[in-house]
């Protein structure tokens, strides 16, 4: 039976059911309710909850605990995720599949203010690593609380398979709102066999032995091929394709539905994983496509580069025009509907 759950609480419960052994977090708006929820829930389940003294300590606690091979999790927002970067690159380096929930606030520096409702301003950092060195996190962007639950539960094993950090990247609004959701059953807590147990043995993959640095780039290339994840929405005969993620895609969906009722051939390609970006989704677009529109809840266009790069890799899309609509805050669907109509009527300027 479905129950009404707040986003931040649901992220914690989903992780607990997925077998999370340790959660560590530090309060920061708009994700503080994850910390609050886990402070009761984890001890109740006889698991470990730690309230840290900074986000740096959060991620480094995850680093130490994650080396045991158990699933471990932290969450934060804005500057908190900035502070974590040294630890996230360390987790990548040692192949620790830590789960990081980033509830995006708004903007640079302290961010926040009226922007606690959230944005997709961290898109560039989340999908490009963020710390030192060449690495990538698996980045999943849900468009509903139910999808966030499913992504945590179903995709965390993918992070374990490739031994790679995973980010559930979402926005303040989704974390703060409530929706009717259903949770999966509890999964058994298991430590991966590569985990440290105190024995003097070497981790064959990401242990302290030196030499084969190419293994990291090979892993990234493999994940790029095998972990793409997206949703096609009304694309079969589409002439106009909207690309959007997260809550932004939900508003776009409303605008698309309204235009479809008027007979406009418009659809959406929604990346569920922003890294690796779904190039295969672009390959599969129908040959009716005449234009692509990239909509983002960000001060400036960020995902646009991924869209253009994906199109560059698909020969049939090389000459198709691209339009970009970044905005500070979510645009109402009637504004988007008008914008899409203007693009179709040739009244908007294409990118480049």
């Amino acid at each position, binding site marked *: 039976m479905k129950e009404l759950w707040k986003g931040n609480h649901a992220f914690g419960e989903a992780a607990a059911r997925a077998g999370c052994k340790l959660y560590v977090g530090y309060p920061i708006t708009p994700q503080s309710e994850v910390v609050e929820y886990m402070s009761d829930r984890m001890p109740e389940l006889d698991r470990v909850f*730690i309230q840290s003294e900074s986000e740096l300590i959060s991620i480094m606690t995850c680093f130490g605990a994650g080396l045991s091979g158990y699933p471990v999790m932290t969450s934060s927002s804005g500057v908190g995720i900035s502070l974590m970067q040294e630890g996230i690159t360390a987790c990548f380096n040692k192949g620790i599949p830590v789960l990081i929930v980033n509830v995006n606030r708004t903007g640079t520096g302290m961010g926040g203010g009226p922007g606690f409702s959230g944005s997709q301003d961290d898109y560039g950092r989340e999908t490009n690593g963020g710390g030192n060195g060449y690495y990538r996190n698996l980045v999943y962007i849900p468009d509903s609380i139910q999808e966030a639950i499913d992504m945590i539960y179903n995709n965390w094993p993918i992070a374990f398979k490739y031994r790679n950090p995973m980010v559930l990247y979402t926005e303040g609004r989704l974390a703060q709102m409530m929706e009717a959701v259903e949770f999966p059953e509890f999964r058994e807590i298991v430590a991966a066999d590569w985990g440290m147990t105190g024995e003097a043995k070497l981790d064959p993959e990401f242990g302290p032995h030196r030499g084969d640095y190419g293994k990291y780039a090979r892993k990234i290339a493999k994940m790029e091929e095998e972990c793409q994840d997206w949703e096609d929405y009304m694309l079969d005969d589409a002439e106009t394709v909207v690309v959007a993620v997260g809550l932004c895609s939900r508003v776009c969906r409303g605008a698309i539905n309204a235009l479809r009722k008027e007979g406009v051939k418009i659809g959406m390609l929604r990346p569920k994983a922003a890294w690796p970006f779904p190039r295969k989704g672009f390959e599969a677009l129908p040959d009716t496509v005449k234009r692509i529109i990239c909509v983002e809840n960000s001060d400036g266009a960020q995902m646009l580069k991924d869209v253009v790069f994906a199109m560059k890799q698909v020969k049939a899309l090389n000459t198709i025009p691209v339009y970009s609509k970044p905005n500070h805050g979510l645009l109402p669907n009637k504004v988007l509907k008008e914008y899409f109509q203007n693009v179709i009527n040739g009244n908007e300027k294409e990118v480049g």
Partner: protein
Amino acid sequence: MAKEFKAPKNIKYVGFCPGCGHSIFVRLMQEVLEEKGYLDKNVCVVGVGCSANVHGDNVYGDNKMECHHGRPPVAGNGMKRVRPDVFVWTYQGDGDAYAIGMGETILAAEQGFPISVFVINNCNYGMTGGQMAPTTLHGQVTTTTTKGRADYPINVMPLIQSIDNVAFAARATVTSPAEIRKLKKYIEKAVDLQMNEGKYSFVEIVSPCPTNWHKSPVDSCKWIDEEVTKVFPLGVFKG
């Protein structure tokens, strides 16, 4: 009949400079782990600095955790909390523990993380070539205090000693067999407190750094006994 001293089986070689105190600590630690049966049930959390010389597979296998600068106590706490049956110990230098990682050092003591913290204090940043550390003595010449340090070093012991959650706090050195035997006893006590009672211990080891002090090993030990221990007195401060 002469007694044969065998190296603990986990040590293949130790890549420290001649006369350095690190290697004595590493040897003692492995002896204690072997004697107490924790060789295959311990995780060593190394920071960045000369302690990082035990990286690679030269000293014990993969039961050491390479950790970022200053973070070993929190990473160690993470491991200990999910694997409580494992002996978790941090092995840091004074730059690691008292400069970039001072927050973590105090936090671990304040919260009484169930781990054992070992800090090698050699009054400078050894690995990077002898720069000033928080423990550099007043007037001491380093590569970043070429006219001698103008201000004064920090002695963390009074602070650590004052924290309720600290079960054991001691400072030792390695300048004589008598001091080395004392250090071994401190290590044993830290192991017992963690494994039998789940308690936090802090042991600082004042250690010679002949390479960066530009002194012979013998003169380095002499300087510790005559000058350094005036600023960093030895002994048990708590427990």
